[in-house]
């Protein structure tokens, strides 16, 4: 059952001279104690610049200290605060309440990740799939000899992969992916985009190894270019582009 609470005048972090407030609905669920999740509602004032994360922390400070939320950098660098905000996976620190254009903001844990508690989800499977595609440079001569220098790359060669290296492993893409909604064995857009990041890196010689890893029944072929991963990526990685380029190698469009 929903519970509506308002911030008392003397306790508000945001000055109550701001006339604007929203109802923040937070999903509360402890898998060890609860049978299903429930929403708790809080009225929270906000300014033009207030982010969803700040609103959640306001609630945590003034109403319900037990709200479990993962966050760290508050500047869309660490990828910790991914959650469903009004039905779409977003970073809470990177989403302003004013941009949502709604009097009610509903926050829930990211889909397709196991819930630890409330808004916090487990990332073990994401890391497992990331490691599966061997996210490091593969080459025979990776140990530097004394007279060798660093591997050289032209600016054009860097441009081929730098976009995909921006991935902060926030998991929003995996949450948005329609295949991940039903297929627990699917590698996922995050891992596939990272596979392309290394394949496209001119220093890497492990293209065939990685292509063999993803060429399986729950690998790259279960991506159908719905593009939702790219729609939600907060860092402009555009995993859908990387995945199609990677598939181009398998189909013979690229060599």
């Amino acid at each position, binding site marked *: 059952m929903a519970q509506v609470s308002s911030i008392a005048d003397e306790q508000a972090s945001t000055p109550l001279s701001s006339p604007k407030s929203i109802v923040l609905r937070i999903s509360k669920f402890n*898998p060890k104690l609860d049978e299903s999740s429930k929403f708790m509602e809080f009225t929270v004032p906000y300014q033009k610049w207030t982010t969803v994360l700040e609103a959640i922390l306001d609630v945590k400070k003034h109403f319900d200290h037990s709200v479990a939320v993962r966050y760290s950098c508050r500047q869309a660098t660490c990828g910790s605060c991914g959650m469903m905000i009004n*039905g*779409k996976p977003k970073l809470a620190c990177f989403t302003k309440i004013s941009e949502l254009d709604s009097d009610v903001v509903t926050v829930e*844990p*990211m*889909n*397709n*990740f*196991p*819930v630890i508690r409330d808004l916090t*989800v487990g990332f073990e*499977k994401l890391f497992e799939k990331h490691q599966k595609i061997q996210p490091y440079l593969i080459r025979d001569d990776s140990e530097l000899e004394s007279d060798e220098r660093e591997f050289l790359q032209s600016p054009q060669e860097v*441009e*081929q*992969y*730098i*976009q*995909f290296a*921006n991935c902060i492993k926030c998991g929003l893409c995996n949450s*948005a992916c*329609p*295949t*991940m*909604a*039903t*297929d*627990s064995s699917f590698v996922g857009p995050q891992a596939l985009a990272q596979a392309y990041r290394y394949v*496209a890196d001119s220093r890497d010689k492990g293209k065939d190894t990685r292509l063999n890893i993803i060429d399986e029944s729950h690998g790259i072929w279960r991506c*159908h*270019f*719905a*593009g*939702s991963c*790219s*729609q*939600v*990526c*907060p*860092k*402009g*990685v*555009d995993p*859908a*582009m*990387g995945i*199609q*380029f990677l*598939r*181009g190698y398998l*189909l013979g*469009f*690229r060599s």
Partner: protein
Amino acid sequence: MTEDEHREGIKGMANPGRYGIERIAYLLMRLTGLGLLGYFIAHVYETSNILRGRMGWDDFLAMTQTTEGHIFLALVIGMCVFHTGNGIRIMLGHGGVGVGNPARPDYPYQPASQNYRQKIGIYSSIVLAAVAMMYGMAVMFGE
């Protein structure tokens, strides 16, 4: 899929409302594919009525050459044209054609793969399907 993985399930796969026309195209591709497979199986079965001679064939025609049959066939035409057009767009995309080029990302981080070429491809498939349906109905009901 296990409950504790908090997966959306079919509801998530079939919910096209949040991510733009590309996600809608993905759902339509699945629905038209399944619809066409069902029609194909029925079509192969129904056309085997030719082996029952003139009477068998005329019985089959009496069932399908009706108003409902024509409307159904028009829907099949629409599904076929959309599935074909969108399928060609997807096949080219799967080869990396028309998905943009990698570049250093900059705010507001608009994804290059969700570009106007893809949107034109999807909307064209929908429009062509509608035109094909209208032409099909004109042919079938025009006689």
